[in-house]
């Protein structure tokens, strides 16, 4: 039985002990299996949400660094939940995508007037106990100042364009 088959067979019955996990995952045979997979996959291991190549000013405050990603994914989720209530039909996806792009831009390059709001949100310890912030009111309050009128106009425009494209593609009316 090869290492991978042995690994798969572990997915039944009782949980393993730490020593059993060590023996299984870093014991005899793991390396042959690892190199076989690495050769077959022909790609490099990597993981994690990327912020791009720009250093957000907020990152300069190290204690806030770890919370910025939590805030970002939470805002991404919140804006989706909000836009889904707007009943935009085929424009929903593009509206969400545009809004998320704006959120990322604001977090990466916040205008000076936005910084106090962001820092205040990042400093609320009670918000950061789970993968996503569950306090929706806090997220909505932040989105209200984070997304500008220009952002809203762009969201509306992309949604409208999607609806327009959908109508124009219906040649058999």
């Amino acid at each position, binding site marked *: 039985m090869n290492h*991978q088959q042995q*690994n*798969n*067979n*572990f*997915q*039944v*019955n*009782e*949980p*393993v*002990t*730490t020593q*059993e*996990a*060590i023996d*299984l*995952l*870093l014991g005899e045979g*793991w*390396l042959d299996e*690892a*190199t076989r*997979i*690495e*050769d*077959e*996959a*022909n*790609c*490099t*291991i*990597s*993981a*994690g*949400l*990327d*912020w791009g*190549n720009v*250093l957000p000013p907020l*990152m300069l405050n*190290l*204690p806030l*660094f*770890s919370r910025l990603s*939590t805030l970002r*994914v939470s805002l*991404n*989720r919140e804006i*989706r939940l909000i836009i889904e209530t707007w009943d935009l039909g085929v424009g929903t996806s593009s509206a*969400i995508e545009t809004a*998320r792009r704006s959120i990322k831009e604001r977090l990466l390059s916040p205008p000076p007037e936005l910084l106090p709001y962001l820092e205040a949100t990042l400093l609320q310890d009670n918000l*950061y*106990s*789970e*993968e*996503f912030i569950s306090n929706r009111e806090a997220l909505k309050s932040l989105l209200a100042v984070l997304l500008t009128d220009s952002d809203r106009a762009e969201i509306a425009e992309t949604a409208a364009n999607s609806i327009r494209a959908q109508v124009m593609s219906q040649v058999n009316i």
Partner: protein
Amino acid sequence: MQRKISLKRGIDNSSVEAYLVYLGQRHVDDYVNDWVEKLRLFTQEDKYWDWMFKLRYIANQANLEGYAVECENTTQGLMIIETQMHGSRLNIGKRLVYVDGIATTPTNRIEIQRPPQFKGVGQALLNFARIRSVELGYEGRVGLHSLLRSVGFYEKQNMFNCGPDEEYDNLVYFEYGALRRR
């Protein structure tokens, strides 16, 4: 912690002794002094400053742990895991170890060097994340968001592919389920 492991030399598949250790300043130094320039040169979609910041602040965060693989006195791989805030998407209500970042040195990346200097580095780190998950009582559950270029690797691992996660810029979410005894 210093756990002895083996890696394979890419050139002849011979085994070589390596160590899995806690993340330390020397690993940060290796990243800054040796990795970054090569990654820039080959325009690898890595998170230069992101990693640098993570590596520097990790010591002060109770929910984050950092590990490195050393071989021949140089840093071969880095991993940061989050241990308190993430839950399983396959088994709702269960905690898991979340791989916040994992990376290998440029010379171990086939996009940069073929054959790579050492093989097995990423797998060793990933396997250790599962061991850590067992230690923490999470039964081996591990989750991560894969960059597009690495999806094939995780699929080969028999990790469960939960598909693109729109809240995470459509990175593909993968999860290992619980490890069970036969």
